[in-house]
């Protein structure tokens, strides 16, 4: 029984970690789904968003609940600026050009964030207790944090909202059309710049949510940019174009990396969870290149 409970605890802990990865992966999916661009700068946006929030509270002495809406506006403006000054001039360029542009953006955003707000490590207190839930501890001896459950709830709300946006709204249809083919979408009168502007602004908002949760847990510091590395295998597994895929992928990656580290790690010297998800993603690519929920691309030859 004890062995089973321990397994269950590792599994649940992994699933909840996976939710945190999914939060970051969602930002990637959103932009890829709407523009076909793999946004390398998503991790930098997470860092920028969190740093901006704490920076505003420090600089202007305002409480967090005032700083968050300000940060939302700043992130939306950043998204719109990226669309106007980086993506718009690159419409109809090959995907690799757009990808390279986002690499450049990464370094620009990282530098800008540190230039404006400095590079010191800051605490971020959201008021969500990050301690084990006593009831679970008493009944099952499991250490599950209340913070993780809140993060899972936030993730569920975000996913539901995004699925509704993509599938049930006019703008969602436009987003999907643009993702399929920029030129074709333009030819039928879809306002490409408008659509991209919206998508980048929403991606900025998702980056803020991820930044706040990760920043609250780890402190707001440059290392937040690295959370993007955790999202990559999630995307490969779940599919770059699927919002539910980002969640399912996150859960699978989170659970398997924790189980692997706890049960296989000690046999091989440990420290395997850094690369294990990538091996899993690689194996998955061989079997299902489009990911679990990604769109299968069929081309006429």
């Amino acid at each position, binding site marked *: 029984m004890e062995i089973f409970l*321990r397994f269950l*605890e*590792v599994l649940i*802990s*992994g699933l909840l*970690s996976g939710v*945190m990865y999914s939060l970051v992966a969602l930002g990637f999916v959103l932009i890829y789904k709407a523009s076909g661009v793999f946004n390398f700068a998503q991790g930098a946006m997470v860092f920028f968003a969190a740093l901006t929030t704490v920076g505003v509270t420090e600089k202007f002495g305002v409480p967090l609940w005032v700083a968050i809406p300000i940060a939302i506006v700043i992130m939306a403006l950043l998204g719109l600026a990226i669309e106007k000054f980086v993506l718009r001039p690159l419409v109809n360029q090959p995907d690799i050009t757009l990808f390279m542009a986002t690499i450049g953006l990464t370094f620009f955003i*990282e*530098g800008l964030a*540190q230039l404006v707000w*400095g*590079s*010191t*490590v*800051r*605490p*971020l*207190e959201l008021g969500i207790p*990050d*301690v*084990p839930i006593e009831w679970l*501890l008493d009944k099952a001896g499991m*250490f599950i*944090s209340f913070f993780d459950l809140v993060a899972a709830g936030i993730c569920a709300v975000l996913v539901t909202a995004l699925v509704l946006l993509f599938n049930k709204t006019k703008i969602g249809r436009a987003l999907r059309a643009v993702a399929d083919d920029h030129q074709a979408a333009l030819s039928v009168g879809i306002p490409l710049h408008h659509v991209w502007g919206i998508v980048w602004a929403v991606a900025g908002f998702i980056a803020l949510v991820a930044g706040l949760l*990760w920043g609250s*847990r*780890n*402190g*707001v*510091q*440059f*290392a*937040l*940019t*690295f*959370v993007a590395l*955790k999202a990559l295998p999630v995307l490969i597994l779940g599919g770059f174009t699927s919002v539910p895929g980002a969640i399912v992928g996150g859960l699978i990656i989170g659970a398997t*990396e*924790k189980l692997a*580290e*706890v049960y296989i*790690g*000690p046999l091989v*010297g*440990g*420290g*395997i*969870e*850094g*690369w294990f998800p990538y091996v899993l993603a690689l194996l998955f690519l061989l079997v299902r290149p489009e990911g679990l929920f990604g769109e299968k691309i069929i081309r006429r030859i």
Partner: protein
Amino acid sequence: MKFRFTRLLAITAVAASTALTGSLAAAQEQYLPLLSYRVGPYAAGGSGFFGGMIDYFNLVNANGGINGVKLSWEECETEYNASRGVECYERLKSKNGGASVVEPLGTGIAYGILDRVATDKIPMTTLGYGRSDAANGAVFPYVYPLITSYWSQAAGMIKYLGDKAGGMDKLKGKKIVHLYHDSAFGKEPLPVLEAYEKSLGFTLIKIPVPHPGNEQNSQWLQIRQANPDYVILWGWGVMNAVAVKTAARVGFPREKMLGVWWAGSEEDTIPAGDAAKGYSTMTFNTPGNYPVIDDIRKKVYGAGKGNLSDKDRIGSVYHMRGITAGIIWVEAMRNAQAKYGKGKVMTGEQVRWGLENLNIDETRQKALGVLNMFPTIKTSCQDHEGSGATKVQVWDGKAWKAVTPSWVMGDRAMIQKMVAESSAKYAAEKKITAACAAG
């Protein structure tokens, strides 16, 4: 038009005279290259440390320099990246008449320029990090792992844990987890910890954390399962705050955690919030205020020359560590001047001699306004470390406080034996004939 021309002429004249004065002044200045990092994942440590060094250099200059020789410096951003660090070293080493000493504040960069500094005859200090066996000056004449190397620190940790348990023999049968950054840095203390495991009879459980360590659930679930008596946290950067917070999340008492000194700054504990209360780490600086820090506040920050943008960081762990590094450099140059000529600019070889003959005893510490801020230092060719002493500090929720009133020293004889063996192996590999430098 005439006015514009006159103004242009005046500006040109001022610029020319400034350049002339600058070049004349440069001839009287001791040039110091600073391989600093102020952006990137480890910026908090870099900005505090190099801020402390520069603040001390400004204080020295405000007091008239070293026997009249003013200090000048140039920074190059390494981002704590080894290849960039090597590039910065190469870029700065020959500037302004040549570098006389270097401090990379990163094990990777230190390894990257280890052979170069010997070739270029520029001594390198690695204050509390780097190769532990470089303490043998006969093999590493240009490398100075000053105050306390990783090996000495690991020995100090075990000594402290032994004392805490009621005696070294009481560690028998105990379980100690070594939770480490999965890198050369994290593995550096393993030979010492494994030697103690054998001699004292405790069980050492090694758990690596993949870089950067921003997620440690699985490691802490393993720790909880193992139920150790102590956890040694050998981390750096984001890994530290995450470890402390995750320990709280799995209900592991922070009082049973003991961090390496790179895990013992305000930047490690403040982000962890209340979870960090009761968490202890090693240090080679006694937390507190000192006359030298008051002087820096008054003469450097008062004159608007302070390097830290956030004045609350004055006297913080990294800042104090940077001041310590600055003091050591200046004392080495002062030492060298006493031998090679007061009021002269010293070469790398001369500063090397100064470092190898340091004697910062309590009297000298008192004169410098740093009594007990760091252990007394006495170096020699056989001992480039110069001390080996450490202290333990605890985070009380707001600030670091010293736990051990006096300096803690591990098994010095064991460490010296290990240094001799390891450096001899290195000398054989590199075909170096071990010998103390003349002078």
